[in-house]
């Protein structure tokens, strides 16, 4: 879907990784791995960006309460990097209360300018992702 929208290979990788991390986060932390609970994944393609929503059926969480994996005390933690990777790989990232009471991850990436991003190239950008807020 990202490739069809015009994103280059590296951005497709970043978007794919973010969706994967978002769904895993929703399944593991949100829905507590309960199979009867659903994960809602919505992709909006607007004129200038791709917006991805991942909604779980958990109890929600505050982004400000998520431990920073780059903090000295968390650097060797064996978990807790999913949110960080989504923030790093996407242009915009937020977590809002979902309609079902769970958490809704909303993240987006700007569409490449026409002709600026080859379908299988790096789009003229470094593969090293930028850091989000």
């Amino acid at each position: 879907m990202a490739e069809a929208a015009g994103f280059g290979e590296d951005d497709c990788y970043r978007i794919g990784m973010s969706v994967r991390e978002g769904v895993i986060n929703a399944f593991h932390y949100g829905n507590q791995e309960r199979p009867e609970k659903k994960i809602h994944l919505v992709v909006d393609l607007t004129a200038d960006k791709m917006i991805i929503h991942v909604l779980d059926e958990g109890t929600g969480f505050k982004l400000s309460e998520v431990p920073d994996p780059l903090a000295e005390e968390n650097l060797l933690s064996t978990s807790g990097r999913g949110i960080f990777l989504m923030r790093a790989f996407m242009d915009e990232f937020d977590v809002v209360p979902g309609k079902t009471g769970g958490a809704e991850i909303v993240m987006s990436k700007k569409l490449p300018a026409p002709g600026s991003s080859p379908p299988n190239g790096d789009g003229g950008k470094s593969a090293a992702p930028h850091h989000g807020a």
Partner: protein
Amino acid sequence: MATVEKAPRRTTEHKGIKMALHATHRDAGTVTVVDLSGRITLGDGSALLRKTIRGLLDDQRTQILLNLADVDYIDSSGIGELVSAFMGVKNRNGNLKLLHLTKKVRDLLQITKLFTVFDVYTDEGTAIRSFD
């Protein structure tokens, strides 16, 4: 350059079950080189890496070099598994080092600040000698 005798490769993958990650290991003196290929992700990939490291530690192989040349994808769970492996080996007074990172994996370790935690090498001979 030191000459390293390479033992026959031994696979730790379950026969007949296609897994996202494939792991074989070989001995180079006191060092065990683990050649990984595929994806280290939540599920089978992370589990196989964990099982491989545990097996080596059970065999008293505590000097481990992970060859990631053919690992094209690692997610946050895979990163956690690498850290877990690193800590597990360290707790046994051993060393776990990384060899031949792909660009994507190197970028991941850099943004998570783990690039400075692991000893990373681009040459196998140099990496093996570093355990001396």
